[in-house]
């Protein structure tokens, strides 16, 4: 066998370092190959062993997640997770980050993030039906923030709207901890028939490998390794060509892919995501235990004189790699032509166990596949128990007039209405949207087309809790997602996660990762809420400053009959408000402390998973039996803010009281977990109380719907004023006036 080496002025070891391989990792390459790799081969190793593709720092800990369950069809390891939603139907979903690209070029970075996550979902045979996004920006006053918000939001809308998938939910936070590293996590949810799921493993030798979609250019070369490195001042200068998204091409790609699958021609398929052609071909052949040969001259190219290295590492968007069943090339041809896509048979599977690349008739890469996956670095990085914020005592909580505090919190960047943002997202295309960011529900809901079923979707994480205590914060993110699904009447089924952290080579950061995962895993186990897919984004640091730990949870639930759904938008005068769940008065790390006093202190609220479950089961029963007329979970800002949301969405006043022996400000703003505000008809209240007693779930009457004001402990604010306060901030900020 012969390999050609490209002219290599530098030593290969230097190049390895430049491509992101550590010296000991490069040594493994040398040992396994028994020779020096050439440039192309080194490129393949470096991207396959990047943090982004190999999960080398997190893999060990990700194993703690429960990944099975009665409804799990396919857990982590494939392009996306698959769950059973009855009647032979499946839901496929995943969340993924595009943090670094979005910081550099917010529009294209966010747009291609949305495109990438959609491909992960339709690659498995699903039609995408809902999009979500979890965004974390720097503090509003930071000079870059406004432009980043503007760009990211229009990029998300620009892509999702054009492709025609509704964006139905998300979350948006602002904090100085993200000044140098914003987070853009996008989630896509799709639907497929459970017996028509497509996987990436090449099933047999001798099959044609087909490339289809857009042409390959020099976009984003080394994106995978870049997203595995820290930012420094000059990374904006050094960056490689930015990837540009073409949502129109993506739309064609979806239709063509689904049509190709329906034709029965597909044996295996994989989108070209990070590290494009390299990871897709290596994974397809590697998972199938086969080999693969590609002729790079056949790759549709957008630019002239592209090298093998450039083609293999290009991250041009909207491209797919499929392995067809024997003799089915003509089906492909017909379908690609119909949809106007570039396509070519670029190779074949074989039994060699190698990936062999030909360029201009020469072998430019010949690597055994097994070391690429089997010998991928796996690190048990040293970690230390993260510092934890101490539990606060009620006496340590400063007192503010309840009314001032409420208006401050409801108008703060995290709580202010995100209307400016979500009105740029098409939330209704596909004509199955039952609830979205605008409707007053704790989760987005889309119908399973043509049925009475609906999917409920949400994305949650409270980074300030995770920062104060990674373990409890990790638990909380999962619990809040579960609660949000429960609050609309859905059965929570499974989650995807997006773990965003700083540099794992620092023991304190690694400690955050480890403990947050521990907490999440614990909550997933207790709530029977397995993890079916996910993504890890590390090195979110600039000049040594890490982001707040942000393990975002995206969750999916099922409603068997969407007529039984509920929100907090239909509360009527005369209905009684019940608070389900116990209020001990958890004030640590609350919005109250941060927004009113500028204090980011205190242990976050504890998540008692048993009460979480019991309270949720009760609420779901109240919804199912039609007793609950309005439900809102309690989260940021506690009871009073939840009541404010409810009053605004239902356009009805609420008169609240404090039946506890806690001080009024504490009862109003404590962020104890596992709680719901539930509106019921007056006549039903005693029945609910009896049911709750039987289930040993604490419940208290806390008010009644009436009038046009929000009333509590001496506070009386009109809904108009409240609405103005809540709506004003973001549009004013974006117009440069706040």
């Amino acid at each position, binding site marked *: 066998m012969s390999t050609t080496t490209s002219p290599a002025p530098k030593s290969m070891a230097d190049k390895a370092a430049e491509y992101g391989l550590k010296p000991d990792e490069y040594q493994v390459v040398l040992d396994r190959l028994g020779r020096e790799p050439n440039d192309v081969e080194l490129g393949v190793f470096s991207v396959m062993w990047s943090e982004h593709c190999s999960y080398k720092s997190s893999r060990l800990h990700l194993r703690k997640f429960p990944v099975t369950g009665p409804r799990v069809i396919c857990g982590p390891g494939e392009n996306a997770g698959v769950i059973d939603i009855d009647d032979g139907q499946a839901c496929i979903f995943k969340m993924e980050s595009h943090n670094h690209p979005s910081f550099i070029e917010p529009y294209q970075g966010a747009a291609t993030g949305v495109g990438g996550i959609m491909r992960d979902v339709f690659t498995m045979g699903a039609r995408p039906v809902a999009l979500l996004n979890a965004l974390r920006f720097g503090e509003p006053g930071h000079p870059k923030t406004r432009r980043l918000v503007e760009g990211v939001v*229009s990029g998300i*809308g*620009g892509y999702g*709207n*054009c*492709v*025609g998938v509704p964006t139905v939910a998300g979350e948006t936070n602002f904090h100085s901890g993200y000044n140098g590293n914003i987070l853009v996590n996008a989630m896509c949810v799709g639907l497929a028939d459970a017996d028509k799921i497509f996987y990436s493993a090449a099933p047999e030798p001798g099959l044609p490998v087909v490339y289809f979609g857009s042409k390959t250019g020099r976009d984003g070369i080394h994106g995978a390794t870049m997203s595995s490195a820290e930012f420094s001042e000059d990374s904006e200068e050094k960056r490689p060509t930015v990837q540009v998204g*073409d*949502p*129109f*091409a993506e*739309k*064609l790609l979806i239709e063509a892919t689904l049509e190709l699958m329906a034709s029965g021609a597909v044996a295996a398929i994989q989108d070209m995501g990070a590290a494009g052609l390299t990871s897709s071909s290596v994974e397809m052949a590697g998972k199938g235990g086969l080999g693969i040969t590609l002729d790079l001259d056949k790759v549709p190219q957008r630019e002239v004189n592209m090298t093998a290295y450039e083609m293999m590492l290009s991250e041009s968007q909207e491209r797919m790699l499929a392995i067809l069943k024997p003799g089915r090339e003509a089906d492909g041809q017909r379908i690609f032509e119909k*949809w*106007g896509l570039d396509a070519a048979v670029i190779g074949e599977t074989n039994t060699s166990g190698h990936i062999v690349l030909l360029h201009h008739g020469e072998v430019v890469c010949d690597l055994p596949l097994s070391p690429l996956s089997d010998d991928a670095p796996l690190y048990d990085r040293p970690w230390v128990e993260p510092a934890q914020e101490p539990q606060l005592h009620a006496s340590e909580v400063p007192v503010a007039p309840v009314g001032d505090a409420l208006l401050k919190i409801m108008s703060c960047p995290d709580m202010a209405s995100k209307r400016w943002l*979500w*009105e*740029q*997202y*098409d*939330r*209704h*295309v*596909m*004509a*199955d*949207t*039952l609830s979205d960011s*605008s*409707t007053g529900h704790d989760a987005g809901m889309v*119908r399973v*087309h043509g049925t009475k079923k609906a999917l409920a979707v949400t994305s949650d994480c409270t980074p300030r809790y995770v920062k104060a205590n990674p373990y409890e914060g990790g638990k909380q993110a999962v619990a809040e997602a579960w609660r949000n699904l429960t609050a609309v009447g859905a059965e929570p089924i499974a989650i995807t996660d997006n773990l965003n952290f700083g540099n794992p080579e620092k023991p304190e950061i690694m400690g955050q990762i480890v403990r947050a995962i521990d907490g999440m895993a614990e909550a997933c186990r207790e709530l029977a809420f397995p993890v079916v897919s996910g993504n890890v984004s590390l090195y979110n640091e600039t000049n040594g400053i890490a982001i707040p730990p942000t393990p975002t949870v995206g969750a999916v639930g099922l409603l068997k009959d*969407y*007529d039984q759904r509920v929100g907090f938008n239909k509360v009527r005068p005369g209905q009684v408000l019940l608070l389900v769940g116990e209020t001990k008065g958890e004030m640590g790390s609350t919005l109250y402390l941060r927004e009113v006093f500028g204090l980011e202190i205190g242990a976050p609220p504890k998540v008692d998973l048993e009460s979480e479950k019991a309270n949720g089961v009760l609420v779901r029963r109240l919804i199912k039996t039609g007793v609950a007329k309005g439900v809102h979970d309690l989260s940021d800002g506690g009871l009073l803010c939840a009541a404010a949301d409810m009053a605004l969405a239902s356009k009805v006043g609420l008169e609240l009281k404090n039946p506890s022996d806690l001080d009024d400000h504490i009862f109003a703003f404590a962020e104890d977990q596992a709680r719901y505000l539930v509106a019921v008809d007056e006549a039903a209240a005693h029945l609910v109380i009896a049911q709750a007693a039987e289930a040993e779930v604490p419940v208290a009457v806390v008010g009644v719907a009436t009038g046009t004001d929000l009333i509590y402990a001496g506070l009386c604010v009109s809904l108009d004023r409240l609405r103005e306060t809540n709506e004003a901030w973001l549009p004013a900020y974006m117009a440069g006036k706040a």
Partner: protein
Amino acid sequence: MKAAVLVFPGSNCDRDCKTAVETSVNGKVEMVWHQETELPSGLDLIVIPGGFSYGDYLRCGAMASQSPVMAAVKREAERGVSVLGICNGFQILCESGLLPGALLRNSGLKYVCKPIELTIENRTTRFTSAYGNKQTVWMTQGNGDGNFFADAETLKSIEDNDQVVFRYVENPNGSMNNIAGIINKAGNVLGMMPHPDRAFEEALGSADGAPMFKSLVRAAQAA
């Protein structure tokens, strides 16, 4: 009712339109690919759906208006078949000259998606007869280029001929005279930015789109 829904590369409300017609009036719907040169015979309605035909990259609707199927649509329109263009479909109708005017970038320069209230300005058309004396309707809309423009003379003639069918109660995009939807002089081609195809049952937040399809069924039966 027998309807055809056109499908361009980049259409994304084609299925929505089909479902809307099927659900609200139990119509029979055929999907017609943009490269077809003939439409099925005996159609009561041709729907040009929303979306981003050809990515809307040059101008919204520009490339679609040149497609083979649009030549067939023009012929059918001349014969009096009902044509309904929604959102991108409205843009395509203007670009192809079947409706007067043009749709410019929204005055706020942003894509705007929200439920919106419309007044019914002309309830005598074959698209609106089933609205009875309902004064306003709710539908959602979502577009970046819904800002209706026509030169003064054209605008005057549109108004003089009662061609404005829907107006925004609150103008979301700078449209002249708050125009949300217009009809051609002959009364068989309607274009509108809001989506009746996303408002055909209460679960979607509004069923106010359904009477439009009911009106068309009536018209078809009368013909």
